[in-house]
């Protein structure tokens, strides 16, 4: 029977029952005599059991069954309400919650057995000795300290950041009045130096003066112990009885101890319960849309910060500028944090490729060794979602067209097994993904011929175009249809699509190929898509933003120093020839008359290996900009990567150096 249609219903109802269990258990602990609440708990557990059994979740059924048994004992009065029992019952509820969360995958829950045996142990203990366990462990300050999972995590984290943990036993003089005030002062004094992790008895008992003459505090601090104990002894009638340093072996022992206690005879799955619970406590699943909204808000914040900066500068308000500087640091931190939250290791995409490669290689009778490097490299979530398909394309092309059959390889004197390498790594503010094969490479002459036949360039052009320019043609839509590509031993099934996807992510793609030796395709993607550093330049009264990542340097020049070489304007920069491009011409900016001896500015940008100087009127300044798209209507305008809104509210266009010329 297909139960999947009932899954959502089950999940929703189970959640309700769990919430009610949680709530009522706490109620019952506070008021053990309340039979009505107990019945309610019993009913919830019973319903849950029935539902889980119907849905076929055996482990949930098993656990709820055990809970039910213990609850039955409670009901019959053979078991009494003790904190220990409730600890276990509440942990059962937590576990159930986790199990129901994973219910879809219905994976094994190895930590169940220990929990169940613990539950059984307690029930048995209680049932055998019904009247002994009923005493409330109110005066439990003599009990050894126990840490829960969360506390151990905190202690470990503290230790890792050079904090020392202490277990301080504090005594009050006999017959002290207002004990709670002493406690409060102890806490207050301690908190000046560090953080209190735990106290025994619990804070509530301390506050209500339900303790003897002493209590214990676990405390982390970087302050020397003498200072701490002095600070405590300052308080009248307070005495430090002992101050023990704790380190991870203490908590590890503690952990082991706790586990040993948890482990009932017959079960030996040691580490899973605690680590599992620890992890679920520390992560949160967030809808990607919420992160996008957060990102947008941070973007707006940055725009407003820049606006404030401008106001501060215009009016020269020193105080404001200082405050803004502070805020600037905060927004930068916030921004990088949000960025980091959105980062996902590329392994999510890469992990599906070994299978793809294996299947394709088998299908085409090729012998391929697949290597993945740098799969831990992190990329923005949006990029991850988009990059999969282009990579599949490239890998498929490499296996289909690039890599030869084993026989052909042996004939060509290559190793029989071809190597296909997929690598990701960081380079500056970019992430580089490479797909490299040692196949037959692309035949440039054939591509050239093909391009001429298809009319991408004339025969004459074909003669003097260099290899790089010829290679570009394979990214042209319509250059290749599958059969043609196989003919010319190149690749190109949908390479135009690959290119446009990469470009829509503000990335670039390059091909490096050697006939008979292989092909390397290098994709370069920005780390983040949303906010970049840019240089604002003014051209004929218009403002443009140039991403800092493509700028090498800036310099200035007098119009008289511009020379020409074969009709191309150039300048000499430290003795080297730098071709110049007037941004006015490139961007068809309406001409503004300029004085002949007025200084011009040159922004030296990089395009691949080439360096080019962009001549502009003025450098306005460097700032963070939030990238916005121009919308579907205007996508693909060469040279324009998008737009940004400046602090003034004005829209300024972002130049895309790669496609500008």
């Amino acid at each position, binding site marked *: 029977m297909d139960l999947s249609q009932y899954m959502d219903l089950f999940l929703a109802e189970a959640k309700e029952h769990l919430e009610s269990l949680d709530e009522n258990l706490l109620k019952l602990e506070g008021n053990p005599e309340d039979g009505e609440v107990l019945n309610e708990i019993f009913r919830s557990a019973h319903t849950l059991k029935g539902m889980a059994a119907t849905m076929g979740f055996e482990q949930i059924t098993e656990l709820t069954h055990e809970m039910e048994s213990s609850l039955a004992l409670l009901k019959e009065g053979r078991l009494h309400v003790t904190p220990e029992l409730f600890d276990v019952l509440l942990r059962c509820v937590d576990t159930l919650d986790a199990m129901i969360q994973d219910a879809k995958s219905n994976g094994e829950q190895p930590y169940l057995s220990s929990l169940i045996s613990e539950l059984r142990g307690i029930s048995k203990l209680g049932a055998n000795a019904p009247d002994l366990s009923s005493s409330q462990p109110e005066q439990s300050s003599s009990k050894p300290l126990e840490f829960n999972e969360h506390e151990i995590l905190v202690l470990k984290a503290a230790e890792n950041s050079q904090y020392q943990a202490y277990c301080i036993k504090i005594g009050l003089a006999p017959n002290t009045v207002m004990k709670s005030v002493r406690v409060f002062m102890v806490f207050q004094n301690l908190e000046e130096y560090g953080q209190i992790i735990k106290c025994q008895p619990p804070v509530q008992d301390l506050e209500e003066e339900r303790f003897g003459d002493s209590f214990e505090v676990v405390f982390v601090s970087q302050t020397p112990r003498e200072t701490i104990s002095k600070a405590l002894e300052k308080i009248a009638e307070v005495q430090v009885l002992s101050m023990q340093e704790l380190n991870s072996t203490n908590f590890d022992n503690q952990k082991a101890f706790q586990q040993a206690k948890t482990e009932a005879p017959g079960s030996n799955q040691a580490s899973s319960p605690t680590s599992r619970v620890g992890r679920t406590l520390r992560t949160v699943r967030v809808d990607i849309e919420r992160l996008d909204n957060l990102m947008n808000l941070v973007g*707006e914040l940055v*725009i407003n910060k820049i606006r404030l900066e401008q106001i501060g500068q215009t009016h020269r308000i020193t105080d404001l500028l200082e405050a803004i500087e502070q805020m600037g640091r905060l927004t930068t931190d916030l921004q990088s944090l949000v960025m980091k939250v959105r980062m996902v290791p590329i392994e999510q995409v890469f992990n599906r490729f070994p299978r793809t490669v294996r299947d394709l290689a088998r299908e085409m009778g090729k012998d391929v060794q697949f290597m993945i490097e740098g799969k831990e490299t992190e990329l923005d979530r949006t990029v991850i979602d988009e990059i999969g398909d282009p990579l599949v394309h490239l890998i498929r092309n490499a296996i289909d067209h690039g890599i030869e059959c084993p026989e052909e390889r042996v004939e060509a004197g290559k190793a029989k097994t071809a190597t296909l390498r997929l690598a990701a790594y960081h380079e500056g503010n970019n992430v580089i993904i490479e797909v490299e094969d040692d196949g037959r490479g692309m035949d440039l002459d054939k591509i050239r011929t093909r391009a001429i036949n298809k009319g991408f360039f004339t025969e004459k052009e074909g003669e003097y175009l260099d290899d790089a320019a010829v290679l570009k043609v394979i990214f042209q839509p319509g250059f290749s249809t599958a059969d043609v590509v196989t003919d010319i031993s190149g690749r190109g099934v949908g390479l135009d699509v690959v290119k446009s996807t990469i470009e829509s992510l503000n990335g670039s793609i390059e091909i490096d190929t050697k006939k008979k030796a292989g092909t390397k395709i290098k994709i370069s993607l920005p780390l983040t898509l949303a906010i970049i550093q840019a240089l604002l330049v003014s051209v004929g009264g*218009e403002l443009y933003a140039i991403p800092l990542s493509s700028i090498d340097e800036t310099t200035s020049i007098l119009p008289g120093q511009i020379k020409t070489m074969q009709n191309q304007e150039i300048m000499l920069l430290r003795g080297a020839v730098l071709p110049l491009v007037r941004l006015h011409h*490139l*961007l*068809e*900016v309406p001409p503004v008359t300029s004085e002949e001896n007025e200084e011009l500015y040159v922004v030296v940008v990089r395009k691949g290996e080439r360096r080019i100087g962009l001549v502009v009127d003025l450098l306005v300044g460097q700032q963070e900009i939030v990238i*916005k*798209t*121009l*919308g*579907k*209507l*205007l996508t693909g*305008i*060469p*040279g*324009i990567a*998008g*737009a940004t*809104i400046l602090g003034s*509210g*004005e*829209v*300024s*266009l972002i130049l895309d150096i790669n496609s500008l010329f």
Partner: protein
Amino acid sequence: MPDGQMNFKDEIQLVVFSVGKEEYGLDISQVQEINRLLPITRVPRAPACIEGVINLRGDVVPVMNLHSRLGLGMRTDTDRTRIVITQVQGISVGLIVDEVLEVLSLRSSTIEPPAMTGISNTGYLQGIGKIEGRLLLLLDLVSLLDLKESDETVA
């Protein structure tokens, strides 16, 4: 203004605006809002009829010069010049019009298909509506935005 009558199925509501001396209508469901003229940033290399982009409360929206798109000569800005923000197929675009006149309902039966009129170059028209002796040219936003056929001014 809407004429208070019941909205029958065969009636459409139009935003009516003037461009040059002509009156145009656009299905109200495609109109998102109407704005005064905002500062426009020119976009180089964009099709000629795209005047640029505006900042619409944090979103960057392209605006089209309807004069140039419809071949009606130069535009002069006045106090009444408006940007009609339209939305179709997920694309937002602002249309610069000389004046927004009214919103009215029109019976489908009074709309003639453009081909019947014998006027050439009617690709961006959905039809021609007649109301009290006025002629309303109903714009077809989808073909209006299909810029490829309109001009290839991109170098």
